């Protein structure tokens, strides 16, 4: 995890780190472009720091009037395995097939 420095500058390392988390690969030039973009975005959002938010509960949702939306515990039809797998790049025996994710021990 990368700590932002006190002057809140976005470094090239920060961009690479965020890109890695998002599984995006960036070229050198792109890294520079996004570094600038991200810095501008953060600077814009930083204006919010001027507001006194002491004793204000963080907003987690903008639809403040909408609360307690439940569904009852009643089964609805599932889709078929064929349909579920219809967009899969690879499949076998009813499973999604992916590159092996664990190493041999």
């Amino acid at each position: 995890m990368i700590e932002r420095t006190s002057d809140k500058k976005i470094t090239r390392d920060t961009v690479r780190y965020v890109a890695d988390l998002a599984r995006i690969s960036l070229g050198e030039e792109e890294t520079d472009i996004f570094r600038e973009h991200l810095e501008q975005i953060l600077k814009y959002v930083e204006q919010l720091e001027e507001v006194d938010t002491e004793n204000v509960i963080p907003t987690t949702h903008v639809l403040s009037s909408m609360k307690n939306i439940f569904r009852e515990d009643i089964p609805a039809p599932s889709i078929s395995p064929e349909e579920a797998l219809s967009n899969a790049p690879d499949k076998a025996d009813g499973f999604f097939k992916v590159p092996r994710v664990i190493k041999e021990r």
Partner: protein
Amino acid sequence: MRAGKVLFKMAKYDTVIGLETHLQLSTETKIFCGCGNVFGDPPNSRVCPVCLGHPGSLPVLNRKAFEYAIKVALALGCGVQRTVKFDRKNYYYPDLPKNYQISQYDMPIAYDGKIKITLPGGVHKVIGITRAHLEEDAGKLLHDIPGPSSYVDLNRTGTPLLEIVSEPDISSPEEAYLYLVELKRLIRYLGVSDCNMEEGSLRCDANISLKPAGAAVLGSKVEIKNLNSFKAVREALNFEVARQTEALDEGEAIPQETRLWHEEQRVTISMRTKEEAQDYRYFPDPDLVPFEVSSGVIESVRETLPELPASKQERFLGQYGLGEKDIELLISDIDLADFFEKTVKIFSDPQVVCNWVKGEVMMHLKEQGESIESLGLSPQTLAEIIQMASSGRISGLSAKSVLKEVIGTGRSAEDIVRERSLEQVSDKGELEGIVDSVIADNQKSVNDFRSGKEAAIGFLVGQVMKKTSGKANPKVAGEMLRKRII
């Protein structure tokens, strides 16, 4: 610990253990969609756009899962969060099609609870519960080793999970085991999960660290995964205590890491440590609006709480007059306790029923290793068999064999007794001739009994049994013999 024990063995290190338990809640449907919450179906047959994480689909919270979580919270003596929100835990792994898990980060639905365990010797200890939060389960992966692929089944994706996190109050592997037994008992009483570790409806990870005895600062934490039974938890922790003690004795530092319990080799193995700490980037899930938990909701859930183990114990003590050990066994599982009470309603001698339950029924239960329902034995049938034995219609030995056959075949006790002609002959008229001939043929034993050798009567009863191929009621035969000899 008693003073004598301290002198005997002064531990060099304190063991500090915390447990994270995942419970699959036994709702009909998944937590955020209407797919059935069922184990063992063909792969990818219990899925829909929501649990597959298709773009544009929206999760909607299952009310029952929410209520079950509150129910557990109340039973654990937890505070219930008045405003509940869900957060996204972001990570990439193929068991999670959305690339995030809907979970709860900083505002878990339940916090600050406790579980009381009873240590060997009867001392009680309270283990704190830090928090319990709702989340969705991930899918299941199969790995083709040494092949190049993994296979993903997303049926489990979206199964409601309640993660219960204990305080690091557990000071030994045995206490960890007792904590889990108690937690499982409580959850089974509540009826919100079947707690079946084999099917993964109860899963547990353990955190353990050692520190010099009495030290304030905790040692490095080692997390143990892949614990498939309560016994495995205890064994893996025992292994870790030994491993870490040895390392510390050698002056080595314990690295903070995750280790896997290897069931066959009975050791923990280090998972390769990741270069970077996981960065889950939690943030509130905008797809789910907040939930306000009113006092009314809490109270209505409280009304659904069943009689919990402590109250049941007290009631059994007063109502049935059984010993403490017997009651402890009967209330160790809600189904067993219910089974006992239903049987007593029909055959109203609690001690006799208890003896059958703790003897024969428990024996079959242990052999089959499953729940009391899976034995296929109803309280009515057990009561019927006990009735047959206590009325002398069949012998105690026959009764046990009838019970075994009922459990094995599911046939009725009455049919088995008839077909195998197990009925005892208690009719004195029928036994008269045989008793007389046994007396005539065994004069030595008869004289022995007359001269005060009580044991001789046993031999004579045995002869009657032999002549009737075991059909005679030994009690009746004994009485008849005594009467005639004296």
